[in-house]
């Protein structure tokens, strides 16, 4: 199996944890992360994630800081790759940067964007409901 520069295999395994960094305060509450946090970006029509779980925390937050850039990092939504595949979506490695992956194949309906959005919301709900939200904590170096 082909290995990526990070040392991870090219194919994302069902058992792998994924992290979606949260940079909007309105995208989470005390119950967890809201579906809107998982919707794809406009440019690539995909959702950026990192192939990383809650631990080691120091590496998670280093990756989060890079992903957030100048934005505030509030935390990370941690979920399993298998959850993505319970929807009609796929998760594929997308390096660089190291550990980066993308959730792709969001439903497309060019003749009815509102109907398309409702299908995307349903997929995002599945991701949100199977996520553990980990609040950002500064780690001692």
């Amino acid at each position, binding site marked *: 199996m082909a290995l990526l520069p990070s040392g991870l295999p090219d194919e994302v395994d069902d058992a792998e944890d994924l992290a979606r960094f949260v*940079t*909007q305060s*309105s*995208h989470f*509450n005390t*119950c*967890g992360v*809201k*579906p*809107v946090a998982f*919707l794809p*970006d*406009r*440019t690539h029509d995909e959702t950026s994630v990192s192939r990383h779980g809650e631990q080691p925390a120091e590496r998670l937050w280093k990756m989060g800081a890079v992903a*957030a*850039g*100048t*934005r505030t990092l509030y935390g990370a939504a941690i979920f399993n790759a298998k959850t993505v595949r319970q929807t009609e979506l796929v998760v594929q490695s997308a390096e660089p940067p190291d550990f980066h992956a993308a959730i792709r194949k969001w439903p497309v309906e060019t003749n009815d964007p*509102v*109907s*398309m*959005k*409702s*299908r*995307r*919301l*349903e997929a*995002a*709900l*599945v991701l*949100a*409901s199977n*996520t553990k939200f980990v609040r950002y904590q500064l780690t001692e170096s």
Partner: protein
Amino acid sequence: MGSAVSPEATHVFKTASDVAASTESSVSLFGAKQTFISQLRALAYECSADGWDGDDALGLHPSALRQTEAFIRALPNDMPLPEVAADPDGSVSLDWIRSKHRMFSMSIGASNRFAYAWLNGASRGHAVFSFDGQSISQVLRASIMEVMSDGVTSFRAA
């Protein structure tokens, strides 16, 4: 010992108390919607320009904001209010969240057709709602209440 208060006076006092209680309730409900609308306006200010997410998000669409406000005003007073957030495509996102496994999510964009989806334990789905600017269908209300209720559905679709 006899009472110094006549039955008529007691009735007037009770009616006045009922009116006061009803007014207080209305003020409190109106207050909740007003608070929501203030939050919506703050979000609109924060996310009005393209790139508000530090990436490629579209600014919140003015029509989406107007329709969201109208939708909230049209919600019956016995319905729970949602949480509001901005969506990268310029829509307003409304979420009714009972727990991690019971959520109802709606997206209000530039058109009067709103996308929504729900997750209620093992059942889930999606649909589109056409908003006339004033009323909310019984089906939509029932769907929201089914997710938000304590397990007993208080609304039933006609």
